[in-house]
């Protein structure tokens, strides 16, 4: 019986049909999805912090409005992805608990501090840019609600990326001070953006199974190469120095070659030694705790209203 179900499931995957919430799916598939989609949702939510940190200081009213709208979009993506994860039988409370206890992860990039205004541009351009490369690929992921979510999210993310790049362009073409801010932000965010694609394929714990189930459609290294290729000419157009001196066009491969990533740093930040690991989670826990009485009031009020209606 369960063999039949599994065979049917695999046939669907094979035939590029989407798996929907009510379909039978192997436990491992479901767990893998919960891990990946909730991690994605948490990343959107934690990602509100580094950029949110600049809303009150944005140097023009137009930038302030754009940044507010962007952070709002990120929160909206988080909400949307939490809902997609809930279709797999886990509640938002459980997911938040997992985030706050460190059981669930979020993108390690948000453990880097957003130190200057230029970082807002670098995050939009590079971090959202790297995220899109990954998400475009995920539009073809095998789980229906996730794939559909990605289609919608990609549209907004590419808008953010353009805004981030435009912010960098204004700085890069601005005063010497502004150009220095842009270069510094690029230098600090370039390598961590490459790390967003995860370890090399050979080292990646989740890749093989995820590829077989078509949760992931392209490998970490393939996606990273795509990002490196699209970013090099963008850096050039800004007139900034490329942070990777080994980044050169390779005619034969039809790709840019690149220097090796500092994997010690990658694992170091993942393992809690980034500038903001503790800060991000503590911030989330504090806001959640401070909101406890609000949520309680809302529940009590709803219950009271329901009771009054029933009477």
């Amino acid at each position, binding site marked *: 019986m369960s063999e039949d179900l599994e065979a049917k499931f695999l046939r669907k995957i094979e035939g590029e049909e989407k798996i929907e919430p009510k379909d039978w799916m192997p436990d491992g598939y479901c767990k893998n999805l919960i891990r990946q989609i909730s991690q994605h949702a948490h990343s959107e*939510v934690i990602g*509100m*912090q580094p950029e*949110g940190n600049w*809303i*009150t*200081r*944005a*140097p*023009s*009213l*137009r*930038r*302030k*409005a754009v940044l*507010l*709208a962007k*952070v*709002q979009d990120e*929160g*909206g993506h*988080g*909400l949307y992805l*939490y809902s997609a994860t809930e279709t797999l039988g886990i509640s938002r409370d459980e997911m938040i608990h997992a985030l706050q206890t460190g059981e669930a992860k979020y993108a390690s990039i948000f453990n880097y501090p957003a130190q200057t*205004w230029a970082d807002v541009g670098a995050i939009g351009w590079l971090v959202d840019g790297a995220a899109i490369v990954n998400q475009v690929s995920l539009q073809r992921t095998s789980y229906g609600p996730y794939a559909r979510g990605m289609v919608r999210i990609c549209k907004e993310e590419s808008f953010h990326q353009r805004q981030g790049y435009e912010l960098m362009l*204004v700085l890069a073409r*601005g*005063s010497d*001070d*502004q150009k220095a801010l842009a270069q510094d932000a690029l230098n600090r965010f370039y390598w961590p953006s490459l790390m967003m694609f995860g370890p090399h394929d050979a080292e990646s714990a989740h890749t093989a199974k995820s590829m077989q189930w078509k949760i992931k459609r392209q490998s970490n290294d393939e996606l990273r190469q795509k990002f490196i290729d699209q970013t090099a000419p963008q850096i050039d157009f800004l007139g900034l120095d490329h942070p990777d001196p080994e980044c050169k066009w390779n005619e034969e491969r039809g790709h840019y070659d690149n220097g090796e990533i500092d994997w010690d740093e990658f694992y170091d930040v993942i393992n809690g030694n980034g500038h903001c690991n503790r800060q991000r989670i503590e*911030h*989330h826990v504090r*806001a*959640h705790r*401070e*909101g*406890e*009485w*609000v*949520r*309680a*009031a*809302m529940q*009590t*009020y709803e219950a*009271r209203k329901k009771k009054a209606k029933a009477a």
Partner: protein
Amino acid sequence: MKAKILEYSTRLGDDSLVLGHRLSEWCSNAPFLEEDLALINVALDYIGRARMFYGYAAELSADGRNEDDFAFMRDQREFSNLLIHELPKGDFAFTMLRQLFIDLFNSLFLPRLAESSDKTLAAIAAKAIKETRYHLRRSHEWTLRFGLGTDESRERAQRAIDQLWGYTHEMFDLDALESELAEAGIGVDSGALKTEWEQQVSAILTEAELEQPGEQWAVKGGREGYHTENLGQLLNEMQSVHRAYPGLEW
């Protein structure tokens, strides 16, 4: 008259910007994610209003200033927002009760401003009315949740009301400039809105089983640049990047 309208539009811009700033401070700090989004939404509405009012003031000034010069290059003594907007965001009850008082005020003020003989002010107001309707639905609903929720939410809401009350009176004061503009059919006689505002506040607080403060105290001075200590700190933060690199494009 042009200089007076410029001043009036700047005041309304200051109110919007300062409140928008306070609301934006909730980003990633709200009690749950949906509220983060809703508060950002309201903040965006206010920042949008500030841009329109300042943009109009800049146009009237005709001296090359733009909206950002109004927001970033004036000191706190030159800011003329009403004090209620600059008070720190406080807890969630404080923020929502402040919204209730201001939303109710705006729901009376904006329809009048929309009838202004000044077409630009009227157009800004007409756009803002729709936003305020949504804001008021939210702050009204939250007031009920607090008042009819738990003991803690009721206490927090009552404390917020008591702390805010003395800052509400200033909304209904008119100085010479505002009186003159009201008489000319350009500005709004906000003093005439007080009775209706009080009735509506009273109705909502009664519905929420909260008490309207009997104690009469009133702190005033915002329109003359006589601010609480909070505004200087708010502006220090808001203007820091813009002023660190003066005269640049962003």
